[in-house]
């Protein structure tokens, strides 16, 4: 499948208040091309609550329920149950939350909804920061990245949310990236076809948050995958498979690019290059990615 073969369906309509180069808008367009209009979206506090535009207008052509920051999965549970009670179980309920609302404040409600076998799709668009509130550190922020609350660079590594979700043994877990639209589309399509809880995480490089030019969103996503800082995979009924370039990296068919190739374009890592190169911390980032892939290889190769 090529991009030109994706359906014409558009649920994100003109009037969006997103920043130029916004990966969330890109992700939303692709996700709803796969889901179609028989869908209801639950949105906690996140950039999308702004992207929706101002009352009484909206930039979505599907029903949307906004809900509090930590509440997406629980709110979606209620919507799903109510639809089924009304004989509308064929409508797809999708919770669409950022990494703050998923990794941090929303993890309890998410874990609960997964454990209850709620029939919904939970999508985390991960821009590795609280971007809506102005670029603060989240549990998804990578080591050494500048944010407004980690001024000298984050001193901890990000958590592996995908693996936490896998521990719930739900039918489908996937990692995708806005830079790979066909891969994302296929994953959402597959999730839609399955019953029970499905979790998809989309890496969403954020121009203002990561401090790169608005024309480089896709490039930052591609490099995240090529350097192995982000992996494209599917975890289907407890069976793991890697996709695209991540699969080739796992199998050793292509070599990971050094992570420097990705971070050097991002102002959030600028302090690792100026006034002088912080070789030690760059190596720590590289070593951490190496260890992640060693773990992947030992488990899944």
């Amino acid at each position: 499948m090529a991009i030109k073969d994706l359906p014409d369906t558009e649920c994100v309509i003109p009037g969006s208040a997103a920043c130029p180069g916004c990966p969330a808008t890109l992700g939303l367009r692709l996700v709803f091309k796969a889901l179609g209009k028989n869908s209801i979206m639950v949105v906690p506090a996140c950039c999308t609550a702004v992207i929706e535009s101002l009352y009484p207008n909206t930039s979505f052509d599907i029903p949307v329920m906004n809900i509090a920051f930590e509440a997406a999965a629980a709110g979606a549970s209620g919507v799903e149950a109510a639809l089924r009670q009304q004989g509308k179980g064929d409508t797809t309920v999708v919770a669409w939350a950022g990494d703050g609302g998923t990794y941090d404040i929303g993890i309890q409600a998410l874990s609960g909804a997964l454990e209850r076998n709620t029939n919904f799709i939970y999508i985390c668009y991960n821009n590795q920061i609280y971007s809506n509130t102005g670029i603060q550190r989240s549990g998804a922020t990578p080591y050494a990245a500048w944010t407004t609350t980690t001024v000298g660079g984050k001193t901890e590594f990000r958590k592996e949310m995908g693996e936490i979700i896998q521990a719930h043994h739900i039918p489908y877990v996937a990692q995708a990236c806005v830079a790979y639209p066909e891969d994302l589309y296929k994953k959402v399509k597959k999730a839609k076809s399955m019953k029970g809880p499905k979790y998809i995480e989309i890496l969403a490089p954020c121009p203002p948050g990561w401090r790169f030019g608005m024309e480089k969103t896709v490039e930052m996503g591609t490099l995240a995958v090529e350097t192995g800082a982000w992996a494209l995979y599917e975890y289907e009924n407890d069976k793991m498979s890697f996709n695209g370039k991540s699969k080739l990296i796992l199998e050793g068919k292509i070599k990971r690019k050094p992570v420097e190739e990705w971070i050097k374009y991002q102002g959030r890592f600028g302090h690792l290059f100026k006034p002088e190169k912080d070789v030690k911390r760059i190596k720590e980032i590289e070593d951490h990615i190496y260890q992640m892939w060693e773990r992947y290889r030992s488990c899944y190769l």
Partner: protein
Amino acid sequence: MTIMIDTGNYIAAKAAVMARPAVVPAYPITPQTTLVEGIANYVKTGEFKGEYICVESEHSAMCACIGASAAGVRTFTGTSSHGLLLMHEMLHWAALARLPIVMCNINRTVGPGWNIWPDENDSISQRDTGWIQFYCSSNQEIFDTVIQAFKLAENEKVLLPVMINYNAFILSHTSMPVEIPKQKEIDDFLSKYKPRWKLDVDNPITFGNIILPADYEKIRKDMQNSSENAKKLIPEIAKEWKKIFGRYHGDLIEKYRCDGAEYILLAMGAIGAESKVAIDNLRKEGLKVGLARVRTFRPFPKEEILKLGKQADLIVIDRNISVGSEGALFSEVKAALYDKSDAKVYGFIAGLGGKDVPYTDIEKICKKSINGKAKDCEWYNLEGV
């Protein structure tokens, strides 16, 4: 009609199931547990055909209620004390989203230290969330109020969630005989819930997106207007219920032996029921004392209280304390009279942390007020502080 002899919680579960909610998300907390266990039992027997969602917290319980209600179905839950406090954010959300959720709250003391006995500080501290608040004084009133609450909440002139409060153990775990109407009668009284707006793929609306100050203020004013509408509807629904089922617990307040009273006692919840015994005894002694049991703390019955204040001096018992101020009911009663009545108002804090408030103490509180010996907002029978 049948008679069911059971505890407040099991009676509330029976009422909730007879109202036919489609979704009940709930999380257990003492002393609410037997309420949700009761509903779980009705799932097993098939009497409850809706969806019972065992959520992982009270916060998620209210979130799931919000999701279900927004998706267009009747929704019920129950909680208590710390559970209610954990819901606080979503209580505001439910009310601002104008979702007619009905919830029982079993009034229990807030910790630390851990204390499961009755006290109304949990629900009083939710005063400003926009929820209508009833306080019940018997299991029959719990049953009748749960059913009536759906009718009130779902009325398009109201569209506010309703919290039905009753005291831990004194009602939640005490069995009383309760008249239960036939299911058909309940179905006739409560028509099917048909929301004008809901999450609907055929009419895609975005609910709750960013709103600018001028529009937001209108939403707040509309809530206030709707709460005023509720003041009119609560008596109408109570009268309709009385006409069909022959039972009546009062409107916003329940008046008891207020005719010719020179002193009127105001109290809520179980103390309100206990006070009737005290009033009978005081009347036997020739003291002209009546009772106004406050059934709704929100909307606050200020017009009725002003009428009482024009007739008599008022004695207020609060099973709560707004630390740094005084009992919440005491404050609000005085505010209702301000500049319009010369009545004296005596305030008493009693029964916090579940301390027993027997009718003998209520008699003493009244006599102390009548004898002019009451202080402003007195902690009744407090030792060693």
